[in-house]
């Protein structure tokens, strides 16, 4: 139990604001202190790794308030919900997470899956998984082997079933401690980020298992229905936009392979995955769909 209900929303004396529209989600960000507001604006480009519009006089559905309050503390509200006070670094961290998840949940004409994504020879490998399942580790290894980086957090799928890049900084754990994330630009790993929408070649539903080392890797092939069923728990907007999400996933599942398997260490597993992809995925173009 870690909920603290603070009733008073933080709406007083807010002088600075920026209005943005990302994937059709209209958001206004407000602050009462200019220097803090400038830091927030800088962070926006890190939080949202895709082009977005700044707009004037829009009616925003989501208003984020980040205000400096007493004793070097900062306060954060989303609409009427007060998320509490903390240090500047903590508030910016929570803001980063909230902003991204708001966009993911309410994006128009896009389905956001919690997943790692890379491109291999023109098609996407999507690895849907919860936090702490090693998405970033596996994505990092695939990038080191030449895959184009699309995201370590979200697969952004459009209504025609194509994946768009969401190339935020890779958030690696295990450097400071088991849980703290340290951000790296994909270029520092010798990789590159993709910039085009691409069709999906493979969905891999996997989880790390210590000591997993098969003689020959034989993942279980899932039917489209079984696959979508297993992907649904990773769809951020499934409750808000069920019909669109399922229709979109069905389009993707018609053309992609969906497999399920345990995996071992990411470095060795990345080779198995690439070999499997090259053997099983059809490379004929389906960009005309």
């Amino acid at each position: 139990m870690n909920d603290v209900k603070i009733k008073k929303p933080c709406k007083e004396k807010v002088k600075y604001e920026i209005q943005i529209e990302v994937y059709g989600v209209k958001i206004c960000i407000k602050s009462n202190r200019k220097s803090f507001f400038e830091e927030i604006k800088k962070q926006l480009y890190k939080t949202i790794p895709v082009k977005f519009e700044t707009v004037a006089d829009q009616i925003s559905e989501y208003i984020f308030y980040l205000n400096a309050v007493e004793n070097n503390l900062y306060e954060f509200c989303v609409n009427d919900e007060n998320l509490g006070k903390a240090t500047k670094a903590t508030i910016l961290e929570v803001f980063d997470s909230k902003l991204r998840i708001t966009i993911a949940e309410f994006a128009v004409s896009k389905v956001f899956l919690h997943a790692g994504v890379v491109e291999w020879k023109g098609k996407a490998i999507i690895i849907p998984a919860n936090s702490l399942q090693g998405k970033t580790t596996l994505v990092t290894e695939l990038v080191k082997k030449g895959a184009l980086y699309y995201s370590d957090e979200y697969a952004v799928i459009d209504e025609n079933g194509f994946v768009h890049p969401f190339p935020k900084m890779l958030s690696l754990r295990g450097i400071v401690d088991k849980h703290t994330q340290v951000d790296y630009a994909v270029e520092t790993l010798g990789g590159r980020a993709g910039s085009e929408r691409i069709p999906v070649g493979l969905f891999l539903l996997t989880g790390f298992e210590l000591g997993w080392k098969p003689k020959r890797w034989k993942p279980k092939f899932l039917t489209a229905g079984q696959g979508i069923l297993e992907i649904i728990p990773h769809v951020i907007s499934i409750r808000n936009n069920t019909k669109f999400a399922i229709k979109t996933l069905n389009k993707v599942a018609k053309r992609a392979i969906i497999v399920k398997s345990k995996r071992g260490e990411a470095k060795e597993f990345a080779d198995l995955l690439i070999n499997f992809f090259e053997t099983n995925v059809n490379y004929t173009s389906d960009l005309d769909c």
Partner: protein
Amino acid sequence: MSQIPVARKEGLVIQEMPDEVLVYDLETNKAHCLNQTSAFVWKACDGKKSVVEISKLLGNSVSEDLVWLAIDQLSEKNLLESKLSLSSRGQSRREAIKKIGLASVIALPFVASLAAPTSVLAVVSCGQACGGTLNVRCPAIVNCQCTGVPGGATGTCSGA
């Protein structure tokens, strides 16, 4: 007890696929994947056909037990208008499967289900700040809990 099963249609998002049907229940936020046999039975539950008639539609050699096995699962998943179960016939699923036998020419009916996640808006990632005066939740995954104290010290969402 009525033996005229009726498929539920309200409050569901239905996606037809070549050999299966995916059903999302908007009331329970659960998704169900019906294999070919259970999908056939479900679609045949139009409130007009009896279990015997549905079994004949599936094929002459198909036993009533196979249809009942499908109906039992569909009913359990709340995909029928009213409850119908094998137990009301004094039969268990195991007994029904045994009776149908391995020689069945049709795949056994099967309905797989999974629950959708709750809204993630109030959730921060594992490793992020929580507790203290922050009104945020750690993700509902194993080994990721807040080390902070509500109203006390701020902590992080972290595992054991």
